């Protein structure tokens, strides 16, 4: 498969970046082609501009060369991997902004007779890899907005033949080096052993 890894963390030495590297290693072990988009490194602008908002409902909503490039990458990859820290139960602003600015008309959805139809039908798998400051039960009681955004809202744009894989590290602020290393191993192992056959009726 071709995997697009979208990473959102401001610091190079962060656990999220380590998770990104682990995910990439896992993908490479499985023989996937990997492209990494590090939104902070790229200087990706988070907020949608006035011009972009005005163009949003037009036929060419992509105005920024960077969003055009990212939209092409989305179209060329069949696995989307998001690596981010969960802040306030949601995606960091830069990743939320990436969805708003890149996942636009004719990238994430199409309009057919005024009805919204999925356009990410080539995507076979969405993977979320994230860390939470809170323990598992608190995340569940707050209902994990970030996960719902990616595994439900974005998934709806992918048609019916898509699997989701969720890897969450809970209580990360109080975790020790052993737990973190174990989670990094788990991420690498999971990404190296994703089973394309069981979920998709054949690797295509």
């Amino acid at each position, binding site marked *: 498969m071709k995997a697009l890894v979208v990473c959102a963390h401001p*610091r190079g030495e962060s656990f999220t970046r380590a998770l990104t590297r682990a995910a990439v290693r896992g993908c490479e072990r499985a023989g996937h082609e990997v492209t990494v988009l590090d939104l902070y490194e790229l200087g990706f602008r988070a907020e949608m501009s006035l011009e972009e908002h005005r163009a949003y409902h037009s036929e060419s909503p992509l105005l920024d060369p960077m969003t055009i490039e990212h939209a092409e990458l989305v179209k060329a990859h069949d696995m989307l991997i998001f690596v981010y820290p969960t*802040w*306030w139960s949601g995606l960091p*602003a*830069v990743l*939320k902004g990436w969805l708003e600015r890149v996942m636009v008309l004719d990238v994430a959805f199409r309009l057919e007779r005024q009805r919204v139809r999925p356009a990410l039908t080539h995507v076979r798998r969405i993977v979320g890899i994230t860390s939470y400051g809170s323990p598992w039960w608190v995340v569940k009681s*707050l209902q994990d*907005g970030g996960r719902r955004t990616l595994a*439900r809202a974005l998934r709806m744009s992918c048609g019916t033949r898509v699997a989701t894989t969720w890897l969450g590290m809970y209580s990360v602020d*109080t975790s020790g080096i052993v737990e973190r290393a174990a989670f990094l191993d788990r991420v690498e192992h999971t990404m190296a052993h994703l089973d394309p056959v069981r979920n998709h009726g054949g690797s295509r």
Partner: protein
Amino acid sequence: MRSLVVVCHPDPASYCAALRDRVVATLTESGHELRVTDLYAEGFDPLFTAAEHASHLDVGAHPHAAGHVADLQWCDQLVLVYPTWWSGQPAMLKGWIDRVWVRGATWELPAGGNRLQARLRNVRSLVVVTTHGSSKWINSLQGEPGKRVVTRTLRAVCHPRARTTWIALYGLDRSSAEDRQAFLDAVPRRLSSRRLRRLARRRSTAA
């Protein structure tokens, strides 16, 4: 009663701006003290930086957020006016939450703990006025993450008995001009529900 209205939309001529005007007019008429923050108009930078992340567990290390924090600590009621995009707050507004709701101002973390303690106990009411492009049904399937962030996560650091009020227009993309007008006209009534009026009365006698 003191209300802080936070508005987030890039287009000053949008439907969201019309909603903001209704909200401001209604609250002013009801005698609220008002502060309005328009994130796009003031050019707020939503990017949480590496330096902020490095010091996010330090109290009082966030000069960029000082004005916004003062507003948050001043208000009895927080009103968010924004369009729902990808089932949640626009990146601009999420960035405001990421960067302004800092340690010491809105939450505290006991040593060795991993559960936030509320520090924004002055906020008794959280109100959201928003629009969804897709229908209520689609939003329910998606689990309304934007709604949960406010009614659960943000509420958790406010007053323990803080009320939440969700005023939302669903199906904006397929709505008619009449639908939108009807929603605009309903905003004043929804904003002065008996519950919110009672709260405002109590807060003004307390002040």
